[in-house]
């Protein structure tokens, strides 16, 4: 028999109390692992979404993008536009490798959802857009034949939502022309999954936006100075330059700020669990005061008693921590669904990205916290004087 056996068996003495304490530890481990996983998943998703845009710089018409988004949500008529000939101007810059013009148009669809919603259509250039997004592959069909064709390519989720297959017609509210679905994309885990793509000239013609663009994606040559290009683009009239690197950096800064809050919440959970551990182990020591005295009278040294009590804490925290992390893995998808419910514009991909590093870190943190909280009760137990302890039982 070893000290570990005694420690383990002692934990079974008050099963409910042990279970509740381990449950508290498990809960804090679950919170910690899930929050860390969420933080990591969100960052990864955001990175992927921005990287998968296929371009490093986006040119849009000057104006407040938030205002544009609000107007678009109210009827799709508030978007700002820039002239299509900006493409030629941009191309004159030596750093530019490729450009792809885009025209976004939103239409209110009364049949969408319970009360109707905005259906957005992205007009893209059949020649340049596919080259910007080489990772997009087709489940069915392919890209449009030309920029004036009345054809559509649907992202994976858009096709599911619209229940369309290649060859089906796509009905756009207020548009008399039939649009034929020519391609359905495989799932890419990006925002493209929910997008309906049309040829850019078709969108310009259908919605009377000839010669207008809402955005221009710019891919920069390898090794080229992006900052120099951005500085020159800033001088163009009526356009604003959105650097994807800046966007990423800004959002990441926000995410990092959120991480401090998130870790603060996890810290509170850990402190509560630690208080539970101190309470449980201290109660256990007090209940066994005489027993500890007897063990010391039999020749156990203070360090032996310290180890025995500390081992109980380690077992409690180890078991609780492992259970909590297991729970975090099991409920990761559930937590993700909850996050998506509250944050519908969260990045694509797994939002709670748990792996062995996060699990290991959470486990170590919980166990270390638990062991730290076990020091005081173990020290108290180690200081028990055999005679006083035996006498206390007799009194």
């Amino acid at each position, binding site marked *: 028999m070893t000290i570990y056996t*005694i420690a383990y068996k002692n934990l079974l003495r008050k099963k409910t109390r042990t279970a509740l304490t381990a449950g508290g530890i498990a809960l804090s481990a679950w919170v910690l692992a899930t929050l860390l996983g969420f933080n990591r998943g969100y960052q990864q998703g955001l990175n992927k979404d921005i990287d998968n845009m296929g371009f490093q710089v986006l040119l849009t018409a000057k104006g407040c993008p938030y205002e544009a988004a609000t107007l678009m949500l109210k009827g799709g008529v508030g978007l700002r536009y820039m002239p299509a000939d900006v493409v030629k101007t941009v191309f004159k810059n030596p750093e530019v490798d490729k450009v792809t013009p885009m025209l976004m148009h939103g239409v209110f669809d009364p049949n969408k959802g319970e009360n109707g919603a905005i259906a957005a259509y992205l007009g893209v250039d059949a020649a340049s857009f596919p080259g910007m997004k080489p990772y997009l592959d087709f489940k069915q069909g392919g890209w449009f034949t030309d920029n004036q064709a009345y054809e559509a390519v649907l992202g994976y989720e858009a096709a599911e939502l619209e229940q369309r297959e290649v060859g089906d017609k796509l009905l756009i509210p207020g548009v008399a022309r039939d649009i034929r679905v020519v391609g359905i994309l495989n799932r890419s885990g990006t925002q493209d999954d929910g997008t309906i793509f049309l040829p850019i000239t078709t969108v310009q013609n259908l919605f009377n936006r000839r010669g207008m663009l809402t955005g221009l994606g710019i891919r920069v040559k390898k090794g080229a100075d992006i900052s120099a290009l951005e500085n020159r683009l800033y001088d163009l009239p009526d356009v604003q330059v959105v650097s994807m690197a800046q966007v990423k950096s800004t959002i990441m800064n926000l995410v990092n700020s959120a991480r401090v809050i998130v870790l603060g919440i996890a810290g509170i959970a850990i402190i509560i669990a630690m208080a539970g551990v101190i309470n449980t182990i201290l109660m256990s020591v007090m209940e066994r005061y005489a027993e500890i005295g007897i063990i010391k009278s039999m*020749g156990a040294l203070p360090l032996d008693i310290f180890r025995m009590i500390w081992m109980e804490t380690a077992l409690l925290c180890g078991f609780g921590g492992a259970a909590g992390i297991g729970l975090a893995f099991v409920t990761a998808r559930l937590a993700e669904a909850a996050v998506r419910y509250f944050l519908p514009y969260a990045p694509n991909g797994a939002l709670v990205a748990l792996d062995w590093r996060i699990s290991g870190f959470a486990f170590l943190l919980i166990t270390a916290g638990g062991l730290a909280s076990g020091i005081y009760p173990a020290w108290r137990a180690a200081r028990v004087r055999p005679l006083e302890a035996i006498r206390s039982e007799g009194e």
Partner: protein
Amino acid sequence: MEKEIVISAVNISKVYRRGSEEVRAVDGISFEARAGEMVAVVGPSGSGKTTFLNIIGCLDNPSSGTLQVGGRRIFGGRGELSERELTLIRREMFGYIFQKFYLIPTLTVEENIMLPGAFYKAPGAREVYGVMKSLGIERRLRHFPGELSGGEMQRVAIARALVNGPKVILADEPTGSLDTRRAEEIREILRDLAGQGIAVIMVTHNTGLARSADRILEIRDGKVHAA
């Protein structure tokens, strides 16, 4: 041939302060115990029997006097032994038996007996199965204390006291919680232990148990009344 002296206490006193009052729990007791000797310490409640037993068992310090255990000076020398040294002496020399048994309820009989072995290498652990058989508890190894009778629990406590191979067994009212029949069994066991060369020093109110001892030390008001 006389057997070796395992305990030698000279003029041991223990004085407590209770407020302004000075209480002499043990008042100048001198005592010797030899290997294989069975000594009963008797006297009325509060006479200082248990305090004396605790002092010679190195669980309590005397206020004055000298104590030697196994030829080694414990109290009354130039320097006091540290808590660690006292623990090591207890480990080497003593086995303790208490009225309330103090078995750990979550451990089986076997685990309770082997408990000292969890903290250090107990020399008697190898022979423990033989001891359990001699005590008649070998069939109760997997049982928990709650499943045993009082007599069985005390036998388990005796087996546990023997695991470290003690030279002295100190028993404080070992039959205090037992009926007459079980008390008789325990008396036989303690007698056997003395026969094996272990000094058995027991505090008891049980006159039958006291009579079975080789020697009776009667304490009254902290002093030896008769020996």
